[in-house]
């Protein structure tokens, strides 16, 4: 019994490590091959490179720096808009009783069920009609209109969970809504704001279809679209593209390393929205 359970434990560990290695293998391949030239990649994609072809990065970076900066700007704007609008709405739903309250709340969260691709074309038409085609406004406002629903949902329950006595005390002291928001709600909402920001930020950075449809010019091109258009020459080959992929992944990977706990929180809550 003792021995068999020990064997079982060893086998289960080995199995787990195999799964882990297989999971991380594509990313290992990505990193090592981003330093190889075309011949090196074809010869043996699994080997650690003996010569580092930094030139891959030199060729990739000029193609992706501008799109990355564009994406940083758009992502931050989407996060700010989502957090502000969701917080205001959640505050109204959590603290006030008013006519049509639950109907309006349903109105905010109901469209979570609509698949993104169903709205892709009518949203494109809408953006063209408003004269916003190929503008930052289109790239920011449309994804934000998706994110606010989940943001409001999460923040409403967060604010409803805050101690009532705090709000009562603040009201007795003559604080108005904006002061209550500023000095009570926002400080207590830090964890949920972090979760919403991570969720929103990840999906904004990763968004591919909307930027592809809503923008054409280099001026507004987003990183995910630029990655699929990386050009390279025959000598360096695939390595240039892989170097581009590494660079595009780095900002989020670095943040993940710094705050993996809140990231995992944000990821779990974000995908459960369904």
């Amino acid at each position, binding site marked *: 019994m003792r021995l068999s359970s020990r064997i079982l*434990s060893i086998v289960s*560990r080995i*199995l787990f490590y195999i*799964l*882990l290695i*297989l*999971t991380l293998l*594509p*990313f290992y*391949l*990505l990193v090592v091959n981003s330093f190889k030239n075309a011949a090196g990649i074809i010869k*043996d*994609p699994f080997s650690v490179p003996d010569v580092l072809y930094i030139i891959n990065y030199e060729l990739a970076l000029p193609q992706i720096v501008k799109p990355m900066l564009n994406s940083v700007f758009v992502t931050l704007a989407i996060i700010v808009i989502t957090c502000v*609008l969701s917080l*205001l*709405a959640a*505050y*109204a739903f959590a603290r*006030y009783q008013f006519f049509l309250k639950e109907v309006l709340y349903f109105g*905010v969260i109901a*469209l979570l*069920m*609509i*698949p993104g*691709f*169903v*709205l*892709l*074309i*009518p949203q494109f*038409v*809408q953006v063209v009609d408003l004269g916003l085609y190929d503008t930052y406004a289109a790239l920011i*406002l*449309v994804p934000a*209109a*998706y994110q*606010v*629903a989940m943001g409001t949902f999460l923040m409403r329950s967060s604010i409803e969970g805050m101690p009532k006595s705090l709000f009562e005390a603040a009201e007795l002291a003559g604080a108005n*809504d904006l002061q209550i928001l500023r000095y009570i709600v926002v400080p207590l909402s830090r964890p949920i704001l972090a979760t919403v920001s991570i969720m929103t930020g*990840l999906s904004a950075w*990763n968004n*591919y279809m909307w930027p592809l*449809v809503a923008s054409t010019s280099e001026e507004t091109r987003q990183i*995910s679209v630029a*990655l*699929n258009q990386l050009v390279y020459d025959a000598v360096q080959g*695939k390595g240039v*593209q*892989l170097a581009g*992929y590494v660079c595009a*992944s780095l900002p989020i*990977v670095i943040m993940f390393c710094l705050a*993996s706990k809140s*990231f*995992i929180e944000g*990821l*779990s809550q974000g*995908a*459960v929205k*369904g």
Partner: protein
Amino acid sequence: MQKSNSESVKSKKNFGRVIRPYLFLLPIFTLMIIFKYIPFVNAIVTSFYKWNGGNVREFIGLKNYIDLFQDKQFWIALFNCVKICVANLVIALTMPLLAAELLYAFRSKKAQYYLRTLMTFPMVVPGVVVILLWKWILSGDTGVLNTVLTNIGLENLVTPWLGSSKTALFSIILIGFPWVSGLNFLLYYGALQAIPGELLEAAKIDGANIFQRFFRIDLPMLASQTKLIITLCLINSLQVFETIFILTKGGPGTSTMVPSIMLYESAFSFKKYGYSSAIGVVMFVIILIVSAFNQKFLKNTETMD
């Protein structure tokens, strides 16, 4: 909401209190109405029109829907979607659970913590990067998979994985192998951690072996996560778009065609906006039915136990 004509300070203040929550909701509704509700209504209205995106726009009633249900390609696309759903469901219910159980079996909590973080890593790599990475791994000429097969002497298995109609759909399902990273793994692992220690202790004292524990304790305790995973998996599979768009655009032929790709192509390639909208409406209804069905199924089982 009663509007008062009296000029007294009190009623002014009351009026302010009455409209205040609506002021807080004004920004969010402005945004959602312009960029979600109007497009949504337009999608439904357009599905009854023949529209080329420009000047030709005429009401044709249900013709788009009738055409759609007679379109062989649409049925192929739906059937491909069902295949993807079934495969993803089988994968989502087995592999992440296996990985979660294996990780949970580690004695050291610290090791569990670090290994979980490592396992989660692929989730923060941009989705497009993951898709393009697999595109390279599966590509015909210099793909990693074909290189490996050649090196281990299985040349006869070498094939353009995404470029052949026999293997394209299979290759798309293969993406993310061994399918253990991600949300499903986190959900299962979190649920395992939440099983009360006394329960496991009691099972140990009763002499339950690991398989008895798995079937009698773990599985029942994971029931709600399993239902959630089924729901998410079905809805996500019905919406599959980006992966196929980047990898095959539905080809070769119609071997990886799914409704989302048809919708995109009929609008942007063929300028049949009405037809495209009809596909969207039908998919929306299907997803609504699946969600409602799941909701019911979830509620029923919950009251049972």
